[in-house]
């Protein structure tokens, strides 16, 4: 029972990351009809926003400590972040400690801007081209973005720790009557889960209750008609691209403390997020969210010892196996609409 609950919890947490990425992907596909292979790269850039903020906050001046020696036997250089010298060591250290949440503020404008530039500069020209062309050009873009990041930040992962107040884990099991150590879960993963759910809920509310959102939804259903009504749907779609880009970026910023960002994390998520989107049904926002959580939970359960001893290797193939089964039994994924992306 406790193991079951633990994996459900873990699945929801994993799933929230999948859902968040798939949501952005679906927003772009649903509004613009563009298959964006660079979406993973946006996620990665988001994570590197956090790295950048951390680097900026850690900009330091050096003083020589003559009592200690560095690896070459020279006096050791001690680095002190400017921030600590400006605000005093306590406040400075606290600011650095909270660099990941601070990075959210930094990431939103940056990601929206990247989204705008991408849409206006490149994607715009591909609305009428074949999906294969869209895939290729965004794939090329993804490679370029990832190589640029690698050029500046290297290939190794870089730690972006969570604030120390949110570090460590809580024994959730004890709160609801289980034994000690039965259901222990990291605080930041819970934060990530609630953060994702908030963003997802925010996007749905935005589309549901604002006039802007209503026009966008109408445009997703029937672009031409909305265009005929004299509404400048293109500009709204550009904004939606910015929003989708920001969602991917935020998912990345918050993901950093879970697993240290590296330049290829976007590609690692790309295939998976496409599977999620397709399982959910191309163009369906609720489908993407549902499929994200579903695959997260299934993945968690497939990695239990029980599952891997029953079917060896099930943890390696579960996602794909589920995708195959769903697509064969439900031709358009869980909640897909007819005629979308079938030619």
């Amino acid at each position, binding site marked *: 029972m*406790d*193991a079951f609950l*633990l*994996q459900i*919890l*873990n*699945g929801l*947490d*994993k799933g929230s990351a999948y859902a968040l990425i798939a949501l952005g992907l679906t927003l772009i596909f649903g509004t613009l009809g563009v298959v964006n292979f660079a979406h993973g790269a946006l996620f990665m850039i988001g994570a590197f926003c956090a790295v950048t903020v951390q680097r900026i906050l850690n900009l330091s001046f050096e003083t020589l400590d003559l009592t*200690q020696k*560095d*690896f*070459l*036997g020279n006096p*050791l*250089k001690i680095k002190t972040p400017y921030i600590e010298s400006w605000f005093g060591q306590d406040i400075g250290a606290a600011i650095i400690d909270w660099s990941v949440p601070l990075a959210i503020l930094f990431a939103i404008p940056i990601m929206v801007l990247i989204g705008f530039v991408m849409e206006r500069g490149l994607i715009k020209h591909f609305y009428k081209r074949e999906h294969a062309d869209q895939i290729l050009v965004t794939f090329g873009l993804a490679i370029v973005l990832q190589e640029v990041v*690698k050029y500046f930040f*290297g*290939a*190794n*992962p*870089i*730690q972006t*720790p969570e604030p120390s107040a949110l*570090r*460590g*884990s809580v024994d959730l099991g004890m709160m609801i009557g289980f034994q000690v*150590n*039965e259901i*222990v*879960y*990291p605080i*930041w*993963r819970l934060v990530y889960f609630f953060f994702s759910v908030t963003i997802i809920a925010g996007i749905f509310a935005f589309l549901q209750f604002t006039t802007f959102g209503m026009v966008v939804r109408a445009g997703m259903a029937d672009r031409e008609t909305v265009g005929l009504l004299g509404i400048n749907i293109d500009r709204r779609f550009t904004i939606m691209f910015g929003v989708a880009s920001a969602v991917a970026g935020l998912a990345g910023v918050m993901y950093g*403390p*879970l*697993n*240290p960002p*590296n330049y*290829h*994390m976007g590609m*690692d*998520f790309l295939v998976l997020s496409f599977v999620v989107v397709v399982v959910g049904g191309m163009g369906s926002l609720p489908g993407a969210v549902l499929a994200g959580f579903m695959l997260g939970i299934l*993945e*968690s359960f497939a*990695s*239990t*010892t029980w599952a*891997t001893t029953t079917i060896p290797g099930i*943890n*390696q193939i579960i996602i794909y196996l589920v995708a195959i089964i769903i697509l064969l039994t439900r031709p358009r994924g869980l909640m897909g609409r007819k005629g979308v992306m079938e030619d």
Partner: protein
Amino acid sequence: MSKNDVTRRGVLKTGAIAGAGVALPTIFTASSAAAYVNEPTGGTVTLGFNVPQTGPYADEGADELRAYELAVEHLNGGGDGGMLNTFSSKALQGNGIMGKKVQFVTGDTQTKSDAARASAKSMIEKDGAIMITGGSSSGVAVAVQGLCQEAGVIFMAGLTHSNDTTGKDKKANGFRHFFNAYMSGAALAPVLAARYGKDRKAYHLTADYTWGWTQEESIKAATEALGWETINAVKTPLAATDFSSYIAPVLNSGADVLILNHYGGNMVNSLTNAVQFGLREKMVNGKQFEIVVPLYSRLMAKGAGANVKGILGSTNWHWSLQDEGSKAFVKSFGTKYGFPPSQAAHTCYCQAVLYADAVQRAGSFNPCAVEEALTGGDSSLPGISSAANKGFLFDGLGNGQTLYRGADHQCFKDVLVVRGKENPTSEFDLLEVVEVTPAAQVWYEPDHPMFAGGELGTCNPGA
């Protein structure tokens, strides 16, 4: 061609000569039968450095390449000579290898066996490389080693830790300076038992591919021999990026030690996840919960950041070693590049020097002669009585007295047990050496079950 000294004027000149050549068909010559593949004929000799330049291990590859460039500089008499000054064999004169200036070509393994073989082939076939070296994973090492055996050139493995490289996949043309999974287990287990007690229950997470399996097998055997119990061993997919679903059940499994048989990105993420779950703050079975990372690398430890603090593991070499060889190497590497070398850099530097030295001593670039010089000797490591304790014994390259063993072309030397440092003074100062395990303690016979199955074969000089 990537030779250092080609000037543009040189190009024009050769171009003109070549142009004349075409006009005279009488000078058509099929290349004469050489004694061995890529026999260097001019005043230079070309080595092939095959390292990951793209993909997840690109930073290690870059560090390997730095070490090779440094080694070439030293071999050609440049720089401060580095470990050439401390190396016990004094055959090298600083005038290249056998008087031939050392040049090099580079290739990108992409950490894929196919790509690595392609770039190695290109260096052999196109650039005339006489020796291939480098690499950052066992799959690549075994694949390229096999290729070099077929092609008839020497392979000096870079970073490869799987038992198979000098076990069931050993080849006469291939040589490994790096330690292996068995040695990690043999060095680590006594330290673990001493620090954490003999009554421990271990939970393994293992990367689900060849290296992970040999690592798990080795450490399991070594710890169980000292009284530990293995509660569970779970395989994790290589492509996994998040290990939460594997870590979550650990705490409630009855285990009080978690052993992460992961490397590279897998290690960084699984360790980060394990620390996140607060495992190290828990008490299980009345003992402090501990995490162990059998194979450490400083570059990867950097990715895991503060999470490595206090965590034990083993490593091939570390820059903080205080022997003369290590100090000399750190000094010349640090002076040139501004930061200390990694263990990958150290191994690659050693391999390049060892190869050059073997050629010099053999008096020939012929792979068979090189093999004889590198492992064919009769010297042996003190304190080990074994018929297999035979090969080329040297010192001064960092790990104390080292034997290049003839039976399987594996180096035997001291292995370091290290721990993540609690109070690092700089971004490089992440690990501290806890114990230097003497070579005798990590010794094994060539027919040890974990290494059995392969055949060294005979050296292949190609042509």
